[in-house]
């Protein structure tokens, strides 16, 4: 199993979600993060310009079976890319084990997809 962490533009979240849903990736978690990088929000306040030095981003954390890795990554690339700087990154890391809290089930079965139901 792999964990895919995708840091995307917040405004494209709905598109990514739709795209993932279409390929059957219907379970994931997300939260809002701030990204430090080359793109910033420029703001001003009472005559002082300032730079928040970050931009608002959304992080999607998706655990997938190895078989699903590539298609999931591809789907994110397709739906989250605008081609402009600031599109974000995808990080892939290993997951040893998954447990479904409801019934203690372990392993790949704990991450089910549409077609399995």
């Amino acid at each position: 199993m792999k964990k895919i962490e995708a840091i995307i533009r917040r405004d494209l979240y709905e598109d990514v979600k739709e795209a993932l849903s279409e390929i059957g990736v219907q379970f994931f978690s997300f939260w809002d993060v701030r990204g430090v990088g080359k793109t910033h929000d420029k703001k001003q306040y009472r005559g002082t310009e300032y730079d928040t030095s970050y931009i608002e981003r959304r992080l999607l954390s998706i655990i997938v079976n190895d078989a699903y890795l590539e298609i999931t990554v591809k789907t994110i690339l397709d739906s989250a890319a605008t081609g402009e700087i600031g599109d974000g990154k995808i990080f892939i890391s290993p997951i040893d084990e998954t447990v479904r809290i409801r019934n203690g089930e372990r392993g790949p079965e704990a991450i089910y997809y549409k077609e399995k139901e």
Partner: protein
Amino acid sequence: MYTLDNLWVLIAGILVFFMQAGFAMVEVGFTRAKNAGNILMKNFVDFCIGSLSFFFVGFSLMYGTDIVGIIGTLDLSIVGDSVIEFEKTVPLERTGLNPFTDVWFQSVFAATAATILSGAMAGRTKFGSYILITLVLTAIIYPIQGHWTWGGGWLSKLGFHDFAGSTIVHSVGAWAGLVGAVILGPRLGKYVKGKSQAIPGHNLVLGALGVFILWLGWFGFNPGSELAFSVGEDSDSVLNVAKIFITTNLSAATGFLATLFVTWIRYKKADLSMSLNGALAGLVAITAGCNVVSPGGAIMIGLIAGVVLIFSVEFIDKVLKVDDPVGAISVHGTSGAIGTLLVGLFHTTEGLFYGGGMNQLFIQFIGVFSIMAFTIIVSYVLLKGINAIFGLRVSRVTEIEGLDIHEHGQSVYN
């Protein structure tokens, strides 16, 4: 008792002024956080522009010597006068009130009309263009149609009854807003494959506070429109003012409850955001007839307004597919029109239900319709013009990332 009349109208004007804060809170609360600063800006700027433009131009257009029933005589001497002298700056002495009292009370009314518009156009309008619209609305559109009824124009001669402005103030703002919302088109993401999406307001506590403030302000808006408190030693106007408190309050309360219970049945849950609008619908609807209907009539008006509101909101949203983020068109336009028409039924001497026949109802219809037509046509021309020259709608990226950052360079929450 000239002094007492002035005191009352000045204080009533303060309450109407404070409605600006109410509108601001309602509009901010019912929309998204990323545009909150822009909405605040608009609410301030329309009051500021309106205060100036109505003082110098609008007031004389509205209340100046009547020209063929259509418009008052523009009196620019006020500009010069107001710089040089002190006593004579307001040339029109049309009521028993001090001219300054009069212009104060009328200015805050003009600003109210302007503010309503901003709700319907929230979340996607260019700030600069909005300022222009506000200017024209308070200096020209509002005064002209206002003159028809309140300034001695043709509608007043006909006997059109719109005591405190269900139509003249509220509908005018709403119809202009309708035109704006149509020309602008819906916010991004509001209609997906033709289906209306909910874009919930970001802070309904502020929205509710705003409704409380508006309700408060209405006790200046309606009873203050008596423009007197003690005319004659018999003090008729005391009675009138006190009665208007009762009719206004009963209609608002019934409007809230009507919306509450109908949404409860219709949506299975008692809907807060809609019920808040319901109270406002009751307030807007009673405004036209608050001085000539009975308490029972006020309750009926509030009831009708509260129920119609729900269907109006749904109709505009789902059938017309016009995106009105805060429900301004329904609350001020639909309710304003209905409330004005209902005077024809519930007027305790002229109304149909009180043996007055169809006459008043017919006149009310003419008034509602002609003001609607006038406002829609003029604002259409105006907004199309502004759209062509300056553009009305912000860019896609501005809208997505929020007007606050792009138009004002700052966010309100940090």
